[in-house]
């Protein structure tokens, strides 16, 4: 049962920043946000400060000539200025979007080129960035009409008059609130534009489903804010409802996964969200001594989302953290996409995400999920984890290629219709038209099936590889291989394979070498490819296979048959 009172609150507001303004007036000293810093210190922000800092940024943007409807891109790390830079533009009706922050190994020249592409393609009016990137970005963007603003040029100190400041523009609820740029690291990313109405509907629907209680609950997250789950769980849903948000940078967390557990224990954190790989990493990389004396029994909801859910990861997690009070029924899950802000389905409260063990060979045929029984050989079974049930006001159907509804256990495309869907891909009506039908159903491109109301997702968008929560398209990898003289152009293939030990997918690349005789050169070719991929995409290849002529399988039309290549890879190499 959803909390109807919470659900109805969406109608009390017309913009997502109004609840923040309201709370600054009614409960100014309430702590809204705690940022746990990498050096062990923390930044604590009250409702009044959050509002005042956002107003300061809004006024600064106005002074720079930024107007309602202008697109503002944020290029900065996970710290307080990012919160202000995200909220501030919305006070004046400008439209922010958060650009993924570079990972330490990413080639900064390539990274800034991507920012430049986005700016010129979409006519971005301002980029707000950290002082250290100011000069580089300013020279790169000179002449584009886009201003580059450094966070240190904006004084976010609360001024008394800010307390009385409300919205600085007339904003309609159907105006765009912000843009989420979907992953895809090369080329110009698709921008998912969401209206204030959609965002309000969504966050209160999720809060109602989760029975979020601002007096009792504390949300703890290490997810980046450019990620839909991070943005919703760290800013949107928590600030709209007045729930305390405790956060840390993903770079801080990945070095010390124990920080999440320390934060849950100290703040009595009750809700959190992370992708599947983080379950395995936590189970492996948190020491016994870190956990001594911890009580995790306050943790009532842990949402596993944004990459394939593995039951083995849930097992590893409960085995590791159950003894410290983590409740079994808090192993929850969800399915979502940026086009619906984030969530489509969520696992019901106080119910460990159900599992469904089916016949693997039948599932792989792609039509039915048939339950395994005692006659099924163990190696022909596979266990899926439910992604939960639709959130309030969101309809979910499974359809075949003709658009006909599928019965339970029949596999089809997941399509959704809700009052929280995006307005369209930013300035791409052509792409938008492709994914909606005339009745307003959004075609996700993902495959799944239902069992008794629970959605099981079996495959995301075609060929997409999700590594540690990050979406990578095979062609992005293949382009890099094609740029190497030592590899044959058009003869490298990339695909994902499951890695249950790590709880995520691994990238495999099979590449034909230009000179099969030069066996001694192979290790250096592999190193070069790995280095280039890491610098360009910020991800690591799991396995590289350098092969001779005619290994890679292509279709008659010259496209990669990725499944055939994957099968061939397993047949030749996996047994090693």
């Amino acid at each position, binding site marked *: 049962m959803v909390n109807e009172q919470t659900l109805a609150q969406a109608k009390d507001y017309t913009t997502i920043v109004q609840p923040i303004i309201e709370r600054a007036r009614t409960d100014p000293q309430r702590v809204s946000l705690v940022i746990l810093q990498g050096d062990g210190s923390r930044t604590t922000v009250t409702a009044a400060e959050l509002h005042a800092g956002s107003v300061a940024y809004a006024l600064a943007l106005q002074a720079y000539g930024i107007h309602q409807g202008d697109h503002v891109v944020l290029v900065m790390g996970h710290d307080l200025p990012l919160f202000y830079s995200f909220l501030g533009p919305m006070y004046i009706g400008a439209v922010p979007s958060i650009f993924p922050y570079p990972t*330490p*190994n990413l080639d900064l020249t390539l990274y800034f080129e991507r920012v430049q592409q986005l700016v010129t393609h979409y006519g971005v009016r301002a980029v707000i960035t950290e002082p250290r990137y100011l000069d580089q970005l300013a020279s790169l963007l000179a002449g584009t009409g886009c201003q580059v603003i450094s966070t240190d040029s904006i004084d976010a100190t609360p001024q008394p008059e800010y307390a009385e400041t409300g919205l600085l523009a007339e904003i309609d609820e159907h105006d765009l609130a912000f843009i989420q740029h979907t992953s895809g690291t090369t080329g110009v990313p698709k921008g998912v534009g969401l209206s204030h109405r959609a965002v309000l509907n969504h966050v209160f629907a999720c809060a109602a489903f989760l029975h979020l209680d601002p007096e009792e609950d504390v949300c703890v997250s290490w997810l980046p804010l450019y990620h839909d789950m991070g943005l919703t769980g760290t800013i949107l849903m928590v600030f709209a409802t007045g729930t305390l948000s405790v956060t840390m940078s993903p770079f801080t967390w990945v*070095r010390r996964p124990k920080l999440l557990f320390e934060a849950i224990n100290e703040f009595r954190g009750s809700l959190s969200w992370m992708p599947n*790989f983080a379950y395995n*990493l936590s189970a492996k*990389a948190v020491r016994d001594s870190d956990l001594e004396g911890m009580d995790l029994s306050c943790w009532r909801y842990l949402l596993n989302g944004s990459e394939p859910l593995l039951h083995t990861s849930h097992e590893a997690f409960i085995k590791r953290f159950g003894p410290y009070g983590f409740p079994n029924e808090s192993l929850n899950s969800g399915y979502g996409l940026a086009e619906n802000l984030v969530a489509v389905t969520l696992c019901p409260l106080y119910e460990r995400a159900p599992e469904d063990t089916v016949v693997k060979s039948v599932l792989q045929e792609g039509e039915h999920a048939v339950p395994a029984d005692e006659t099924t050989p163990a190696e022909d079974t596979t266990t899926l984890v439910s992604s939960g049930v639709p959130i309030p006001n969101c309809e979910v159907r499974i359809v075949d290629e003709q658009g006909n509804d599928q019965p339970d256990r029949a596999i089809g495309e997941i399509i959704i219709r809700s009052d929280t869907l995006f307005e369209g891909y930013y300035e791409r009506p052509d792409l938008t038209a492709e994914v909606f039908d005339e009745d307003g159903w959004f075609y996700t491109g993902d495959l799944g099936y239902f069992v008794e109301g629970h959605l099981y997702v079996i495959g995301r968008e075609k060929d997409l590889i999700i590594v540690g929560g990050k979406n990578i398209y095979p062609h992005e990898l293949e382009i890099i291989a094609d740029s190497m003289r030592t590899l044959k152009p058009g003869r490298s293939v990339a695909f994902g394979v499951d890695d249950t030990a*790590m709880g995520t997918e691994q990238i495999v690349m099979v590449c034909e070498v230009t000179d099969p005789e030069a066996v001694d050169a192979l290790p250096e070719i592999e*190193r070069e490819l790995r280095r280039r991929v890491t610098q360009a995409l910020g991800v*690591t290849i*799991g396995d590289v296979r350098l092969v001779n002529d005619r290994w890679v399988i292509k279709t008659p039309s010259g496209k990669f048959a990725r499944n055939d290549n994957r099968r061939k890879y397993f047949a030749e190499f996996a047994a090693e």
Partner: protein
Amino acid sequence: MDRSEVAEKLKTYIKTELLNNPDYALGDDEPLISGGLLNSFALAQIGVFVEEEFDVYIPDDELSV
């Protein structure tokens, strides 16, 4: 345990557990993360392995990419 023994144990762990490729010719000074061999998730795991295997303690701020 001398230096080369420590290096050997560490390399074996990295090759078998993290690279899943025992035959990889891992150099002594090969950059693991910037070289695109391991992702940053592996760092915390190496930290735990080193502590358990060699009975040492690595302060948090010593682990960095």
